[in-house]
């Protein structure tokens, strides 16, 4: 079994050299975040991940959360670890300083959350949902709601949940049926919600549910849904916990992965109705949900990076210790560890190269998010907002899809032992599998990308990013290092493939949205593939400059260039096939009749 060690060097490289932490900390509100402070935070967060969270991951998988009589007990050790997490102040990492948070920028929160997710993704879902609720309250809560809920949610003594899905309302939330009936200064909520992550558990004193529901006179469809706060325990005027609200967990799901994260069926209002309070204006619930969904989608994309990294470390450890066969061409002599076999090396490299590319892209998106909030120049704020909106479906969709493939490669490297649960490789694959589904499936991400993010704005942001990529191609061509120049010529072809496909989507979207929908996922993957190559090539340029300047960390930089070369030779080349699929693949999907299935 391997033990997790946070990839601090790569995280620091991406944050400081690739993304430009200094640009972020130069902005107002971020000045306290010095480079050595970030190092100290990362060090300690990595220690917490490796020593507290990771040891619980396997037991969390085998034992899982348990539900009996409406009560959910978390997996062994989780309650104590959560208490440590809260005591350590980690829940308030990027929380508002007005409510007791540390207000660290997203770009610093990314590596920290990556570590925790690598160590124990099921655990991390609890604080992740809490931060979603905080985001919603920040956005549209009343001052008194903020005062009442935000400090304890920021501390983590209370946790939060998001209640969107109902049996008949999954990706289509227009079908939400949960009812909210006004009664004095509050509402009575009745209905059933499913797939509620950490909907009930024993780790926090109170659970604050955010619930989408309809008022009796609300219009049909998405425009008639409002958002309500429903606390598990009602709160007395002095802030202490009062009566149990009329909401309970009916059962938890038996799932493929993340067993330690209870996925609850929640029943609201079995008796008199659960007491709820409206958040923001009526009938705007879904709109609010979508704003905070952006954050949640970035967070799920990061889970993809995290599981990929963990699966890579696990497979690397096995490949370094498992002795099997002789080196190719050797008929006698010592048997070797499998890391010496070219095919295993290729698999490991595909894991490593893609994980690094995914990390670079996800952190880049988070830096754009920080700039969209804090940049002093309004024009820059808007430019970065457009960039982050554009990148989010790509980070979410691509990082999670690749993560499943990477975790699967991790199993493959273990051979038969990978299929056996006790080596632990299978858990990463099973845990990874949810990431392409929740917070909007890959199909939903792709629909968002081709529609709102490309089609409606005629590709404005997409072409701006392509422009940046072309600038990079020109820079790569000028490099004195032949290997870096080689990356440039591959990148040039990939960028042109991507430009062709983007143009096709822009041209086709107004006249034949069906055709675009048929190839939207390949289009998303194409963007991921090339954007990953873009980041890896940038990384290689920076590493090359570091080597030329005689940086003392030459081994890291050389490995970075070699990894970028692998990405360029093996992964980036998929872009031409993906581009072909986008530009030519729609008709065979649309033209196939129902009866032919």
């Amino acid at each position, binding site marked *: 079994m391997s033990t997790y*060690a946070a990839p*601090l060097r790569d995280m620091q490289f991406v944050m400081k050299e690739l993304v430009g932490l200094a640009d972020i900390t130069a902005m107002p509100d971020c000045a*306290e975040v*010095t480079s*050595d*402070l970030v*190092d*100290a*935070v990362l*060090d*300690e967060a990595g*220690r*917490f991940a490796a*020593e*507290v969270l990771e040891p619980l991951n396997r037991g969390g998988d085998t034992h899982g959360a348990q539900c009996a009589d409406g009560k959910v007990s978390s997996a062994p050790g989780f309650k104590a670890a959560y208490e*440590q997490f809260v*005591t*350590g*102040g*980690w829940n*308030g*990492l990027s929380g508002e300083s007005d409510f007791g948070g*540390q207000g660290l920028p997203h770009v610093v929160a990314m590596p920290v959350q990556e570590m925790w997710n690598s160590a124990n993704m099921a655990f991390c879902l609890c604080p992740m949902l809490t931060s979603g609720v905080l985001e919603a309250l920040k956005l549209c809560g009343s001052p008194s709601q903020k005062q009442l809920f935000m400090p304890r949610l920021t501390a983590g003594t209370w946790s939060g949940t998001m209640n969107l899905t109902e049996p008949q309302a999954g990706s289509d939330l227009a079908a939400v049926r949960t009812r909210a009936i006004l009664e004095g200064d509050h509402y009575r909520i009745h209905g059933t919600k499913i797939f509620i992550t950490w909907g009930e558990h024993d780790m926090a004193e109170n659970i604050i549910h955010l619930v989408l529901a309809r008022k009796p006179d609300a219009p049909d469809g998405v425009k008639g849904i409002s958002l309500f706060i429903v606390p598990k325990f009602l709160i007395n005027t002095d802030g202490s916990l009062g009566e149990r609200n009329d909401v309970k967990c009916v059962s938890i799901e038996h799932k493929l992965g993340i067993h330690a994260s209870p996925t609850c069926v929640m029943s609201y209002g079995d008796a008199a109705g659960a007491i709820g309070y409206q958040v923001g204006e009526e009938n705007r619930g879904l709109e609010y949900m979508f704003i905070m969904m952006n954050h949640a989608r970035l967070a799920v994309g990061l889970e993809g990076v995290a599981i990929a990294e963990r699966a890579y470390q696990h497979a690397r450890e096995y490949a370094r210790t498992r002795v099997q066969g002789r080196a190719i061409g050797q008929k006698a002599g010592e048997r070797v560890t499998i890391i010496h076999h070219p095919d295993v090396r290729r698999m490991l490299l595909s894991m490593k190269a893609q994980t690094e590319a995914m990390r670079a892209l996800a952190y880049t998106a988070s830096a754009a998010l920080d700039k969209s909030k804090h940049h002093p120049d309004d024009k820059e704020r808007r430019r970065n907002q457009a960039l982050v909106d554009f990148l989010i479906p790509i980070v979410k969709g691509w990082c999670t899809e690749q993560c499943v493939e990477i975790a699967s490669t991790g199993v493959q490297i273990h051979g038969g032992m990978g299929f056996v649960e006790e080596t632990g490789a299978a858990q990463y694959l099973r845990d990874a599998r949810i990431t392409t589904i929740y917070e909007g499936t890959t199909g939903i991400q792709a629909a968002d990308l081709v529609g709102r993010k490309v089609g409606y704005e005629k590709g404005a942001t997409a072409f701006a990013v392509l422009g940046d990529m072309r600038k990079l191609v020109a820079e790569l061509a000028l490099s004195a290092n032949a290997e870096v120049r080689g990356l440039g010529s591959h990148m040039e072809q990939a960028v042109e493939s991507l430009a062709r496909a983007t143009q096709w989507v822009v041209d086709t979207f107004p006249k034949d949205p069906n055709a675009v929908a048929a190839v939207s996922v390949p289009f998303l993957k194409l963007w991921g593939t090339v954007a990953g190559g873009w980041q890896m090539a940038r990384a290689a340029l920076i590493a090359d400059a570091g080597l030329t300047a005689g940086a*003392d*960390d030459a*081994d*890291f930089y050389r490995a970075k260039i070699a990894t970028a070369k692998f990405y360029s030779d093996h992964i980036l080349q998929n872009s031409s096939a993906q581009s072909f699929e986008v530009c030519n693949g729609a008709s065979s999907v649309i033209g196939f009749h129902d009866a032919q299935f």
Partner: protein
Amino acid sequence: MKILVPVKRVVDPNIKARVKADGTGVETANLKMAINPFCEIAVEQAVRMKEEGGVDEIVVVSIGVTQCTETIRTALAMGADRGILVETTLEMQPLAVAKILKLIAEKEKPDLVIVGKQAIDDDCNQTGQMLSALLGWPQATFVSKIAVAGDHADITREVDGGLEKLTVKLPAVMTTDLRLNEPRYVTLPNIMKSKKKPLENVKADTLGIDIAPRLTTLNVKEPPQRGAGVKLADVAELVNKLKNEAKVI
């Protein structure tokens, strides 16, 4: 009372150290560094004593390169109040460290100096004892329990035969053993706060003392690789091997 805690920056204990190719020492370039675990126990002890009451200030001091400020910040994040970096690029050996600490102790006038019993890099286990001798203060080494009572402290120390209980007059120098406590996890708010705590920088060459290395490293080698084991037929063969091959009985 006031407690002085020296802290040393060493290679992170979770990292496998490698010998430099030329055999002059251990490779430390680009390795993850951390606070020496025994020093961490010393800081933890001081912080616990402060939390229990009766301690007004904890001063941490580190001697070495600029990056030792990270080690000091770790101690500040754990709960120490103030830091002093004595900056030097010279190789620091226990006598030099003890001499510098003596100067600082004379200036700061702590009631107690808590020193890690040894550093995990050179394993010298000398600094605390030397400091006590140079200051002329009592020493209590390898302590696993400290209880201060007025002008003295009752301590328990770990010795080969078991536990020894002593009373030492303050001010005194104590060195920490592994079982004194289990250091806490640093909290995020405390990491943030540690940035604002005072940290004084003193150049070692301005102190006017001779801190030049006294010892010369001749050669550093990896320990021999462990050979493959063999299966023995019976106890007699084992006894024979222990007697004639290993020569241990």
